[in-house]
């Protein structure tokens, strides 16, 4: 077996990459969650607290759920997707910088670091989503999802979108260090323009015209269409969401390829 970085043997290369990414995922898990189980707990607490807070504010204000009969379920479908996308976007941005020292090990490439973090975050949020939906169902606050396969497809699309955004962020950060501040400013309004706490279709048409440009909104709409039996979104455009995600990933990969040569660590 060849261990070289450049080797004619594709199978050996695939084996090498799998091994490296697996090792990085284990390492990231350890670094993200720490030694104690508190780390895992926090990963669950953040979205749960956001959902609970939003539900509490709406109940105190005496508002009905924007859709369906459960405030918590409606917000959960929005917040899990939003936090998945923003976490991917933010965490991939700093992945290369945080693991720069590792790049001195010849087998580890920047793309491995991004891939490992993506996989870890996507799996973590899948677990978080299962726990939150499971708890809501157990507490009688939600029914079973009407179309689980759509729920999963929406989750996959949201993951791709987040990975695309994260790769672009990582690229921009290597070119321009102030990007981290700008990213923080840009992502703030996402909570308001992604339909987390309202149904986009019920908004005035002139708002919808603007909102439909936001790909995160489409990921949330798709999720709700998968969960609720009778949520028929007029805004939802799956092709738009998938195209944006694909284009971002493509630009991210191309940028990584082009900026590789001028990299100076």
């Amino acid at each position: 077996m060849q261990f070289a970085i450049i080797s004619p043997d594709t199978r050996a290369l695939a084996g090498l990459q799998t091994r490296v990414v697996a090792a990085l995922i284990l390492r990231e898990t350890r670094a993200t969650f720490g030694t104690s189980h508190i780390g895992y707990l926090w990963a669950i607490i953040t979205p749960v607290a956001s959902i609970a807070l939003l539900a509490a504010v709406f109940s105190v204000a005496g508002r009905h759920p924007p859709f369906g009969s459960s405030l918590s379920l409606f917000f959960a479908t929005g917040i899990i997707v939003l936090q998945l996308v923003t976490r991917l976007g933010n965490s991939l941005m700093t992945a290369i910088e945080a693991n720069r020292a590792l790049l001195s090990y010849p087998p580890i490439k920047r793309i491995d670091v991004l891939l490992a973090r993506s996989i870890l975050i996507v799996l973590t949020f899948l677990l978080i989503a299962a726990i939150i939906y499971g708890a809501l169902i157990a507490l009688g606050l939600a029914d079973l999802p009407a179309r689980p396969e759509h729920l999963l497809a929406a989750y996959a699309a949201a993951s791709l979108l987040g990975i695309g955004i994260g790769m672009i962020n990582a690229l921009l950060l290597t070119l321009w260090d102030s990007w981290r501040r700008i990213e923080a400013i840009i992502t703030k309004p996402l909570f308001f323009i992604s339909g987390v706490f309202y149904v986009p279709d019920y908004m005035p048409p002139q708002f919808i015209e603007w909102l439909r440009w936001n790909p995160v909104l489409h990921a949330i709409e798709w999720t709700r269409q998968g969960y609720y039996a009778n949520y028929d979104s007029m805004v939802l455009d799956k092709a738009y969401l998938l195209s944006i995600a694909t284009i971002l990933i493509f630009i991210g990969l191309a940028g990584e390829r082009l900026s590789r040569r001028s990299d100076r660590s």
Partner: protein
Amino acid sequence: MIELQSVSKTYRLKGIRKQVFDDFTFTFPPNKNVAVLGPNGAGKSTLMRLISGAEAPDRGRIIRCAKLSWPLGFSGGFNGSMTGIENIRFVSRIYGADSDQVIDFVADFAELGKSLHLPIKTYSTGMRARLAFGISLAIDFDYYLVDEVIGVGDASFRRKSQNALREKLPHSRLIMVSHSMGHVRELCDCGLLLGPNGIWFFDDVEMLIHAYTSLPG
């Protein structure tokens, strides 16, 4: 086999451009230990980073059909909050080596005792270097890259690590940057001189050393 084909590398930092390699083609002779000599800033470390793949050339290709180490004694890739054992496991996984065997070897070689179970950030510089050195020797590489560091730690450990490296030599090759002519004479069969008048290959170590020591300045 390690082969460099028309490799060019230029650094640009704060508007200052420095061309380190321009259309450099070289095939490392098989089964020889190669010294890399030259004054500071001549590009020795850059050459090592290019060979190891830690950095990519601007133009040209580098072909490696061998298992290469990272620079010997390099401990920068360790994660401070992970224990010695966890860091060993990580490196073993990357290189597809058996973690338990590597751990056994390092535990025996690096003499770190119970510290292996503590986070790396509690280690002294010498302890880190011992760990890194131990891991490099525990994994069998075809080529060991040595960037000036040939032994680490106190005098007795330095001897031990140098001896351990010598024991590797029947099976593994060295590519070594050094300023110590004693080491070059002892360990290398031939060498590259990165001088002000270009890059020269010497088949003979004595001629290499002579050329290096008679460089102006």
